């Protein structure tokens, strides 16, 4: 029996108080996510239960109980405190998927500091933009990423401390750098956990927009109320489940459902720090006897490419529930998963700003392959007109996905950017920036983004960041970055480049530009396709018309081009 039971009944009877009561939270009382995920679970009698089974890329396995996790998160919090770090300071976690990342996140929250996880594949420029904006005090990182951090230290006056979790003493650490070895450190059994309240800032996740620099979506400790109950109802986590979330905690899925949701439910989760390879993933599912799997359409489509025969080589009979997030899950992938695993992936829709699932397919509810599903109980959602923001009630008509504000995990602002935050709300709705329609049965159907942001493999990449980076390349005069359709990643970055006079386009230059962007920003932002052009389409006021270029890539109508200058 699923936790949610009948969807319609759950929707009728649901209030957020259900989650508060299950968690033992009383409004106005202290609520600290770090405490709820560790100490509280131990008090529930699960101290010796496994919290994390971690496998490194070399096959090395580490196991931690909830009591281990309680002590280790205390140890990290105490270490930071002893180094003068206090509540409210931003602590960046810049690591691969190692145990220190997961426990560091909760340790930072126990301290009362704000956790700022960043994807470890980010290049120095991407890192600088986000640390500078946040006024970050601490970066916790690994030896292998230290070089990137060191190059930007002089530009970060607020940075007090760089913690290296795997320093081997071979090369001397520099000023501000300190070694910390979690597994060998003397464990702290008792730590004075910061008495955070519902609205105390907890996590800062950066997300990209069409224009300007990435924005820090700021969350609060009360987000736990949403993350706990959505993990329970949508992922259907039960006490005996073995759960695997493939997302990296550098992104919101990796924290909301790779840390907070499962551990607030006291569930054992597995993590592998290996890159994507179909057989490796199937072997991991088999070996760990994963029962609930939360992954992404890009990964599922990559598995599809390898074929059904590969799946059949493994015993995946433990799997009982599959969910997906990051980008729309196409109907073919849903149907393929039924054939491959004997059950369908359940698509879930939400975003960095919402902090938890908004529109999803629920266990027990009939799935319409390709649909996003229905709103979570407690969430009032709709689609609204693109210009009036009035709710659309006619089935099938496309509008903007909109959510009535007030759910517990809603972001509270964009860090130091309240104006942009306020602009996300129209006519009493929070606008997600995506277009969809609702059918006669209340199922949502994704149509596309409402802006120029590129969704590649479930990660949002801002065209402005790419174009700004390209301007620093010696051969580039100007550029425009757009999303290009891709059968696996949904979209990949394509750039149109006008070269400086006298410079000739060739394959070596193309490769050089790709690597230039990859190193400055990240592999996600690296153009997978480069088209050299004489000039870019502009409005008469000089603004580059990305939508014209994007429409051509997608084979869509380019719409009104009356303002186009150089058509």
């Amino acid at each position, binding site marked *: 029996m699923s936790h949610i039971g009948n969807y319609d009944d759950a929707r009728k009877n649901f209030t957020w108080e259900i989650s508060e009561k299950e968690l033992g939270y009383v409004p106005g009382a202290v609520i600290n996510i770090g405490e709820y995920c560790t100490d509280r679970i131990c008090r529930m009698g699960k101290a010796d239960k496994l919290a994390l089974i971690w496998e490194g*890329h*070399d096959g090395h396995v580490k196991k931690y109980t909830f009591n281990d996790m309680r002590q280790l998160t205390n140890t990290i919090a105490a270490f930071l405190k002893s180094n003068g770090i206090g509540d409210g300071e931003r602590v960046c976690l810049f690591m*691969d998927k190692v145990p220190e990342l997961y426990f560091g996140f909760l340790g930072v929250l126990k301290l009362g500091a704000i956790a700022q996880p960043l994807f470890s*594949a980010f290049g120095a420029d991407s890192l600088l933009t986000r640390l500078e904006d946040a006024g970050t005090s601490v970066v916790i990182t690994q*030896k*292998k*990423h*230290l*070089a*990137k951090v*060191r190059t930007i230290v002089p530009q970060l006056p607020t940075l007090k401390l760089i913690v290296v979790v795997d320093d081997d003493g*071979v*090369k001397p650490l520099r000023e501000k750098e300190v070694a910390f070895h979690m597994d060998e450190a003397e464990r702290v059994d008792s730590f004075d956990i910061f008495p955070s309240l519902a609205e105390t800032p907890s996590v800062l996740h950066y997300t990209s927009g069409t224009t300007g620099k990435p924005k820090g979506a700021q969350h609060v400790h009360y987000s736990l109320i949403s993350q706990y109950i959505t993990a329970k109802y949508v992922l259907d986590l039960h006490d005996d489940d073995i759960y695997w979330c493939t997302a990296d905690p550098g992104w919101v899925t990796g924290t909301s459902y790779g840390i907070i949701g499962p551990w607030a439910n006291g569930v054992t989760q597995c993590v592998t*720090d*290996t*890159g*994507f*390879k*179909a057989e*490796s993933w199937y072997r991991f599912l088999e070996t760990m006897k994963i029962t609930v799997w939360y992954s992404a359409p890009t990964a599922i489509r*990559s598995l599809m490419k390898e074929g059904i025969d590969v799946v059949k080589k493994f015993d995946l009979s433990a799997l009982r529930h599959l969910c997906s997030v990051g980008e729309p899950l196409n109907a073919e992938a849903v149907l393929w998963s039924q054939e491959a695993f004997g059950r369908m992936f359940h698509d879930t829709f939400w975003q960095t700003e919402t902090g938890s699932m908004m529109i999803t397919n629920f266990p027990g509810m009939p799935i319409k392959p390709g649909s996003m599903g229905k709103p979570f109980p407690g969430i009032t959602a709709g689609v609204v007109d693109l210009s009036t923001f009035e709710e659309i009630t006619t089935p099938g008509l496309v509008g903007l996905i909109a959510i009535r504000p007030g759910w517990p995990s809603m972001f509270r602002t964009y860090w130091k950017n309240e104006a942009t935050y306020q602009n996300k709300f129209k006519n009493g709705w929070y606008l997600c920036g995506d277009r969809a329609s609702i059918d006669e049965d209340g199922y949502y159907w994704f149509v596309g983004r409402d802006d120029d942001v590129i969704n*590649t*493999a479930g990660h949002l990449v801002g065209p402005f960041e790419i174009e700004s980076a390209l301007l620093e390349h010696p051969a580039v005069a100007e550029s425009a970055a757009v999303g290009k359709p891709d059968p696996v990643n949904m979209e990949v970055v394509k750039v149109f480049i006008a070269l400086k006079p006298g410079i000739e386009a060739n*394959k*070596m230059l*193309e*490769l050089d530009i*790709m*690597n230039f962007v*990859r190193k400055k920003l990240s*592999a*996600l932002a*690296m153009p*997978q396709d480069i088209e050299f052009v004489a000039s870019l389409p502009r409005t008469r006021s000089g603004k580059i018309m990305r939508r014209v270029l994007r429409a051509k890539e997608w084979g869509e109508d380019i719409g009104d081009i009356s303002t186009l200058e150089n058509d």
Partner: protein
Amino acid sequence: MSALKEAVLTYVKNEYLEADDDREVTYDTPLISSGIVDSFSMVSLKVFLETTYSISIPDAKATPEAFDSVNNIAVLLKEFGINE
């Protein structure tokens, strides 16, 4: 020592390892599953091979397995008549 393997290895070390990353990378080191080269960066590795050896590698052949070590890449290049 194979000149081809050495050229690919040098490229991988220069392009995909951070300056302070002192991991030993050999012809056998897993590149994809160890995370040295991620699935997105594989595209630039493919372009490097195509540009350097004047070949065109179809997407169907550019799999994580085919790119997972310098040795595997050498086997792939052999299919295109590029020998060590």
